[in-house]
């Protein structure tokens, strides 16, 4: 594990967040310079469109600016907090059925989508190892919900199973995953 560059980034983002809390706008720009590219990548992975991804990132930065004072470094990492906010912004856009048209281009099926996402994780990853222990379909519900932001309904559609089955797979997969990862 080569953790030290990540630790340095984490420290920079945490320090910048503290300055945002004090109302320093230049500090938000510091976070932008460090993280915005990756944030656009993450949002685009879920929303598939550059314009929507940028909208999610813009919304996330607005929320970060407003909520910076509520971030408590004792309770968790700054980057985790940042990406949780981004995820909320992206999910809000995804679930807004009035305007988001899911890109059904993909006759892309669940199995390759899941395997592609898993293959990006390093071999040493506990998340990867624990997901690989699950049955293929039970692994898919967790991976596709997180990586591509699919809803319960969309998962049921992709996997061709009833909604209730998807819901119980998700819950059981999460419990196994937690037991495996600790």
């Amino acid at each position, binding site marked *: 594990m080569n953790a030290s560059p990540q630790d340095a980034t984490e420290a920079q983002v945490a320090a910048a967040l503290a300055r945002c809390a004090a109302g320093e*706008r230049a500090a*938000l*720009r510091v976070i*932008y310079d460090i993280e*915005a*590219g*990756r*944030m*656009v*990548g*993450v949002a*685009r*992975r879920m929303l598939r469109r*550059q314009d929507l*991804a*940028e*909208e999610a*990132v*813009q919304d996330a*930065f*607005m*929320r970060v600016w*407003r*909520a*910076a*004072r*509520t971030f408590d470094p004792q*309770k*968790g990492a700054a*980057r*985790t907090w940042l*990406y*949780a906010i981004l995820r*909320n912004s992206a*999910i*809000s856009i*995804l*679930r*807004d*059925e*009035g305007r988001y048209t899911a890109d059904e281009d993909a006759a892309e099926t669940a199995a390759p989508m899941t395997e592609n996402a898993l293959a*990006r994780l*390093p071999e040493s*990853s506990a*998340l*990867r190892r624990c997901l690989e222990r699950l049955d293929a379909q039970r692994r898919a519900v*967790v*991976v596709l*919900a*997180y*990586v591509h932001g699919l*809803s*319960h309904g969309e998962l049921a559609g992709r996997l061709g199973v009833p909604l209730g089955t998807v819901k119980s797979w*998700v*819950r059981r997969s*999460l*419990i196994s*995953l*937690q037991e495996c*990862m600790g």
Partner: protein
Amino acid sequence: MTANDDRALAGEYALGLLEGEARAEAERRIVTDEAFAREVRGWQMRLSEFDDVTQPGTAGEDLWRRIEASIAVPARAAAAPSLWARFWNSIPALRAGAAAAAFAALVLAVGLGFAVQAARQQPLMVAVLLDGDRAGAVVHAFADGRTVLLPLAAIDVPPGRALEVWTLPSRERGPVSVGLMDRARTLQLQLRDLPRPGPNQLFEITLEPAGGSPTGRPTGPILFKGNTALAL
């Protein structure tokens, strides 16, 4: 609920699978129930490995400028700083002393001027925000796209708290924050990224931590609420 139920629920929240009331309930628990909040953070951390290995995209100056514009607004009327500067420079006597009183008077003047200017135009849509039968504020939506909140009553804001204004553009989207203020004041609401307010659209004011709701959804008590109606 067993520990496993809560753990799975926290995981479903982190995955983004909770919707509507279930999602709002989980967000309330994150604020009020530290054990549950810890479960959620645990999942966010475990799953964030996927984010670390995602191919970055492009984030240019354009996007930054939009972000800068969107945070430039919050609790003050947009015109206030420049008016403030002009006012200050034009009356040298003010510089001599009584700065606090002058500032208070100025804020009031700017607020009133803004309110008068707003009132001169006829709004398209009006919402009166009530607590029972007490009116706390009125929201005016104008044809040029501006939407303004005008206070009708003083609102008691405890230290470390703020007033946040929300609207519900659609059930699917859920409540969206459109303004934040430290006390009841005239406030230009931020609806630029939303469809124009239609009739019967909910506006409400909640009490939140200073800096606004940590979750992006209302977490505190609703102080005033009301729905828009067409102004005749």
